[in-house]
């Protein structure tokens, strides 16, 4: 099965989703990220969804799960690059993504994480 690459940048992990997500890839990403956070001791995870033209309840749940499990593993997750049409649809679908940090783009997401890291 195709797996999404997870890049380590300093103390952060970056996942940039560039393909049409299959559910099995979404589940694999969740597991891979948990492993990589522990393995690298990363303090932050940036998930770039700029290329995603939809986020449905399955993908939305994955984002919430990654945010929750990274928190337990002492890392912070930021979801970046959500398209406006995707945001509108998510709200109407009923997914508010409570508790998930977001930023407009990768650069801002990484800055948010490094600021948070310095403060705590």
């Amino acid at each position: 099965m195709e797996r999404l690459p997870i890049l380590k940048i300093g103390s952060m992990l970056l996942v940039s989703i560039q393909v049409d997500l299959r559910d099995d890839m979404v589940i694999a990403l969740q597991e891979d990220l948990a492993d990589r956070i522990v393995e690298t001791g990363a303090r932050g995870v940036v998930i770039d969804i700029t290329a995603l033209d939809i986020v449905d309840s399955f993908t939305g749940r994955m984002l919430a799960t990654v945010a929750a499990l990274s928190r337990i593993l002492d890392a912070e997750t930021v979801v970046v690059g959500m398209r406006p049409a995707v945001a509108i649809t998510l709200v109407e679908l009923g997914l508010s993504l409570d508790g998930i940090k977001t930023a407009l783009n990768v650069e801002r997401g990484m800055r948010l994480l490094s600021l948070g890291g310095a403060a705590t």
Partner: protein
Amino acid sequence: MSAQELAIAGDADVVRVRQAVRAAAVSAKLSLVDQTKLVTAASELARNTLTYGGGGGAVVEEVFNGLRKGVKAIFHDKGPGIADLQLALTDGYTSGSGMGLGLGGARRLVDEFTIDTAPGDGTTVTVVKWAR
């Protein structure tokens, strides 16, 4: 565009259904937000067909109402059907491992939503989204 039949038997098929619905929505000149809503609804419904219906199929076609264009998508399975439809459409209710937003959420994202189901008799969900 003529009606397109797609099988739903695995995760890759859900992606293919999304792509077919997206292509039809672009062809019917739906706005970007409406395209996104329809494709998201299709993704939820195709996953339901796979997860709860045990697989099935989708029919995607362009429809017309006078000068108005739209996209119709039908999702059908021969699974166990839905015993309590009202409950199944309630946000937060799930009989599986989902978030319980699939059916009710999909209904909010489209203009027309009809569901035909009976216990033991499979489920057919038809949705339509019109260009504005």
